[in-house]
């Protein structure tokens, strides 16, 4: 499964949360006098002579460092935002890459074939597919609507015995991961056409 965005979000939130908790907790501890008073006294101003002296000693290069830190924050923030909307879909998938030539298949066409294959299942009402991942690690994502009155085993058997083997054959891979999101719906009532 491609869990990269989810994992990245959790890592990002954990790092930001940890930094905020450490900074806030340290400030709180200092204000409450929890640190040794000869090292971090609570009865001094937040910006005292030590701080102003340090800034005066290190100017101007400290401001270049601050600017660099700001730019790094912008880059990290933008990268994180882009990752939320980055589409993992591919336009083509390389099947063979040999010195004599390269075989590419259209990911859209392949996905349509997979969806058509999935729709041949008895309990499947509708299916849609997307092809993701790399040549070495392809992944199929299916969105399906299945008849709620049919045993779900029919659907999973159809996927494992028909759809996935066909995808594996087509992509020439031993393993192709697949994620199917299934909506169960009542079958549409039989329609009678009167002429």
């Amino acid at each position, binding site marked *: 499964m491609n869990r990269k965005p989810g994992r990245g979000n*959790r890592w990002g939130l954990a790092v930001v*949360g940890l930094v905020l908790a450490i900074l806030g907790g340290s400030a709180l501890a200092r204000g*409450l006098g929890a640190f040794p008073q000869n090292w971090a006294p609570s009865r001094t101003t937040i910006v005292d002579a030590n701080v102003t002296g340090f800034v005066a000693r290190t100017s101007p290069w400290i401001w270049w460092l601050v600017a660099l830190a700001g730019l790094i924050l912008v880059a990290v923030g933008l990268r994180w935002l882009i990752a939320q909307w980055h589409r993992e879909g591919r336009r083509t998938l390389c099947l063979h890459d040999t010195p004599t030539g390269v075989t590419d298949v259209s990911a859209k066409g392949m996905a349509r074939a997979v969806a058509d294959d999935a729709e041949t299942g008895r309990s499947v009402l509708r299916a849609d597919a997307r092809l993701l991942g790399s040549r070495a690690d392809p992944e199929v994502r299916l969105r399906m609507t299945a008849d709620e009155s049919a045993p779900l085993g029919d659907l999973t058997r159809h996927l*494992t015995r028909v759809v996935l083997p066909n995808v594996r054959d087509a992509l020439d891979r031993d393993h192709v991961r697949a994620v199917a999101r299934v909506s169960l719906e009542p079958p549409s009532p039989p329609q009678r056409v009167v002429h």
Partner: protein
Amino acid sequence: MSSQGDPREEPRPIEPAEEVPDAQDEAAPAGAHRAPLSRVHDKVADRAAVRAFRPRRRVPAVVVAVLLTLLGLLVAVEALSALTGRPLRLAPYDRMAGWASSTLWSDPWFLVGAAIVTLIGLALLVTAIVPGRPRMVPVRSGQRDLVVGLRPKGVTRALARAAEQVPGVRSARAGLRGSTFTVTPTTSGWRGRDEFKQDVRDAVLTKLAELDPAHPYRVAVHVKEHR
């Protein structure tokens, strides 16, 4: 007149077993997860199925990423503009510096601010660490390469329909909260409540066992009488 079922009644958990016996196996306890076919469950595949549909924390991630970007932009622009001799002064730095130079670390308002920052940090940490409930109902596929999830709405509708097949049920509703499916059948009250409740539970459990979820779910039945 309608009455709600006894809310104190403990919902029964459906714990997936290592190997599920045949439906004909009468030794299975009432309310336990029953599947029509015998098959060995793959715990690795079950975990993968549950993990695949966990929430991705997109909303808090977007909020934090936007704030991080804006903060970085402000810091970089202000520092660079000051270094080039044309400070933009988008934020009131002189007032901020004056406040920081005259406020003690032990100032109550500063302590409140520090406590809020700590709490926000801890909240973000909890959001990151607690995995969250899957947005789909993960079901067993029998293969590690294949992960199948059912949309909760369809599952609750299927369970309500299963409950409606029980004699005496006029209509039924089902919902999913956390790991508990709550089924509320409405009856005209011509059958004994306990027997009726048991039949509904059996019907719902049978349907749920058919779906074969990879994650344990509980089923709670609250009977509504409508005379």
